[in-house]
């Protein structure tokens, strides 16, 4: 009998799906991911949770080979990814597949075309085998319980179906072994989400060599569907727990960590003192759009900043858009300085004195190819309008120059195309655009989104000191720090309703408490 020295795997290695060893990623000025060690087992659903900027996305991008690590390795499928060799193709070959938030399909092609793109089934000398491919796709659709057919045009399907198809492609067609799901649940309906996560359970039980890594904002989801959970904060892993042995509250505490308010000078500034007796500037009474938010009531006083907090899909964005006339209200009433208002289009809202800063700056606000001047003035051309609608151009330029200097926008001149400026400077120009309409109410959706870390405090300062001085402000932010720094009151949206109101000056006006309410974590 020959004694063959088989390369033996230790039991620990056999159970291992992938392992991260000292994985680190540095960006100029930021340490996004800092020496992360993590082992995910086969057959496991592993959750990674943390707040915005905790490093979750950069971490999974490194696992998927999209971003090469600065140091450290990903060990998977008998190979490894490191600073030298990481590419998406290589990650793919190791059996790693990332399901992104936004599926990237060829919208004009059919479901079958998309699912088999680049790996078509063939018969004979390279002829396609459409019947076999359609059968395979029909099976995937069946398995995922989708309403689609192999011959549907991908672009005609709802985003959530596309996302599930991306998942089906990775698992059933590419047979990836390590599936990373990046915030995939954000755009899914509750029912779908439950079904998908249920499917993960079944699949993990069925084929023991699969593993799922679920990146999520939602504590509830992670609690319900994962076996173990890793908490990230400031680029580091701060805790790793068996999900069964932890609870929502302690997870929340790990996630928020020791709460410090940083970077925003106005934190110390006392809240404005809205006169309770005065007529509210803006009053919402049981507003609802019949779908995304219900029973929204609040009163905004002049000089006050109200924050809307909530997860994506909690209804906060929809509510803000409805206040500006971008989507219809089904129920309730809005009163501006006591008189009821209803807007069919943004220009009516602007005329009534409500200004809106949209969330997606490049898509919804910036007018590309046009100078700073035009971008500043576009909402207030009426102010510089002379006879027959001709503009007092010099007056306009004077105003644009003045406002540009006021917020210290860094631009060579007001004639420079806005495209040449940085995110923070573009945002300042848009803020100028709003304030030039001299609104009674500012509605700001993520005023610091896509702005350099260093430029954020200045923008918040503008909100607090300038806008709130004359008007009322409603501000949305995904950053609890910003809300605490800037707002007098924070309304927390959870599943389409306001579940909690926190007021400045009270003991519970903290980042941690807002975070817990946003997550729907119950009081003990």
């Amino acid at each position, binding site marked *: 009998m020959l004694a063959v020295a088989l390369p033996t795997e230790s039991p620990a290695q056999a159970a291992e799906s992938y392992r991260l060893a000292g994985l680190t990623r540095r960006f100029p000025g930021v340490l996004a991911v800092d020496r992360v060690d993590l082992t995910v087992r086969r057959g496991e659903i592993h959750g990674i949770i943390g707040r915005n900027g905790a490093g979750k996305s950069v971490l999974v991008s490194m696992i998927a080979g999209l971003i090469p690590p600065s140091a450290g390795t990903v060990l998977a499928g008998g190979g490894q990814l490191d600073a030298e060799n990481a590419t998406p193709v290589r990650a793919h070959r190791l059996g790693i597949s990332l399901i992104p938030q936004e599926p990237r399909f060829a919208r004009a092609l059919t479901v079958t075309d998309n699912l088999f793109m680049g790996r078509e089934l063939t018969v004979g000398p390279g002829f396609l085998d459409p019947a076999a491919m359609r059968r395979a796709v029909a099976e995937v659709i069946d398995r995922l319980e989708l309403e689609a057919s192999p011959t549907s045009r991908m672009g005609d399907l709802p985003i959530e179906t596309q996302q599930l198809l991306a998942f089906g492609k990775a698992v059933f067609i590419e047979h990836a072994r390590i599936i990373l799901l990046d915030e995939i649940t954000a755009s899914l309906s509750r029912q779908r989400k439950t079904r998908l996560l249920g499917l993960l359970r079944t699949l993990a039980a069925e084929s023991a060599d699969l593993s799922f890594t679920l990146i999520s904002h939602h504590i509830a989801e992670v609690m319900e569907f994962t076996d173990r959970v890793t908490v990230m904060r400031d680029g580091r892993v701060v805790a790793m727990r068996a999900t069964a042995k932890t609870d929502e509250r302690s997870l929340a505490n790990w996630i928020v960590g020791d709460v410090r308010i940083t970077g925003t000078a106005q934190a110390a500034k006392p809240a404005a003192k809205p006169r309770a007796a005065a007529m509210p500037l803006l009053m919402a009474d049981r507003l609802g759009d019949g779908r995304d938010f219900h029973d929204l009531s609040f009163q905004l006083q002049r000089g006050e900043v109200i924050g809307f907090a909530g997860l994506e899909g909690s209804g906060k964005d929809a509510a803000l858009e409805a206040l500006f006339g*971008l989507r219809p209200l089904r129920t309730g009433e809005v009163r501006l300085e006591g008189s009821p208002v209803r807007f069919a*289009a*943004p*220009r009516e809202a*602007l*005329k009534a004195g409500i200004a*809106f800063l*949209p969330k997606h700056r490049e*898509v*919804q*606000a*910036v*007018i*590309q*190819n*046009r100078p700073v001047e*035009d971008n500043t*003035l*576009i*909402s207030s*051309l*009426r102010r510089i*309008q002379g006879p*027959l*609608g*001709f*503009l007092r*151009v010099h007056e306009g330029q004077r105003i644009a120059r003045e406002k540009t200097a006021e917020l210290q926008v860094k631009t060579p001149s007001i004639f420079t195309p806005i495209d*040449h400026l940085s995110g923070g400077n573009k945002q300042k120009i848009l803020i100028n*655009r709003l304030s030039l*309409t001299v609104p009674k109410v500012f509605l700001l959706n993520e005023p610091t989104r896509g702005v350099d870390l260093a430029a954020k405090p200045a923008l918040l300062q503008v909100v607090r000191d300038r806008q709130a001085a004359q008007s009322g402000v409603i501000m949305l932010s995904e950053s609890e720090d910003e809300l605490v720094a800037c707002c007098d009151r924070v309304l927390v949206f959870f599943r389409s309703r306001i579940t909690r109101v926190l007021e400045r000056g009270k003991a519970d006006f903290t980042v941690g408490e807002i975070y817990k309410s946003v997550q729907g974590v119950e009081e003990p």
Partner: protein
Amino acid sequence: MSGFLQAFVRTVFERHLIWALLVLLVLIGLTVPGFLSTRNLINVLWAAAPLGCVVLGLFFVLLTGSLDLSLESTFALAPTLAIMIVLNWLPDLVWPGLTMPIVLVIGLVAGMVNGFISVRLGVNAFLVTLATLLVYRGIVIFLIPEGIYYLPIEMTFWGESRALGFLPIAVIIWFVFYGLAFALINYHRLGKNIFALGNNPEAAFIAGVDVDRTRITCFCIAGMLAALGGLLEVGRLQSAVADLGQGDILMAFAGAILGGTGLAGGVGSVGGIFAAVLVISIIENLMNLFGVEPSVRQIVFGLILLAAIYLTSLQGRVRVRAA
């Protein structure tokens, strides 16, 4: 000094290549006897005026990111209807001197139909205006299959007469309308709104621009300018024929694009298209002077146009590199 020269050359290359092309053509023209004569230059301008009006109209629609194929039919329809109204239908009621305003109103209505269907009803502008291209032309063919000749002076005046005995009224009108358009684009609310929605319709809407109304306004302006061009052409030819302007829409596109107008909307300048119209007109004129055989004219014209379009396309690339 050389720094200034460098900056000048760069500005020309980045923004005004079409002017450089114009200068080049004029220099070529200088070697041709007869090109520089007042008579010839005036002919160049005169021939350019009708096309110039259509290009200007198309320019407005292109700026909004849309297009209008029917302009070449409006070009014929408006003068035809005006002639029929004045001469045949209501000869006792309408004074022939009113031809110009009638033509403009008809053009405006023709444009409004396009605008309304494509903007309000949300139908693809290419298809809508392709259909109205056929309809408008069909009406002209139905009304004047044989054409109309010997028009009264009140109708041909705008295209035919000369001020001070040498300057064609048509050329003056062309200049005036380009001047008006320049003011409208650069110093009027409408212009700012057009550029805003042309570059980013969603952002313009959120910023309070009445996007639909601005779009329809542009279609109306385009119809009016095409109608005006038609009137000038009718005057120049002293007759109205059923195929007036047929096929000219492609030349109008050539003028607009050559002048730096972007097909995606939001990019373009009045000066650019003005120069482009002159370029097209001078190319035709030079072919006449060189005595290019009629049988090969189209080939030569096409090749020169190709070269011109290639040259002006360098502009975008130079700008990208400089940035």
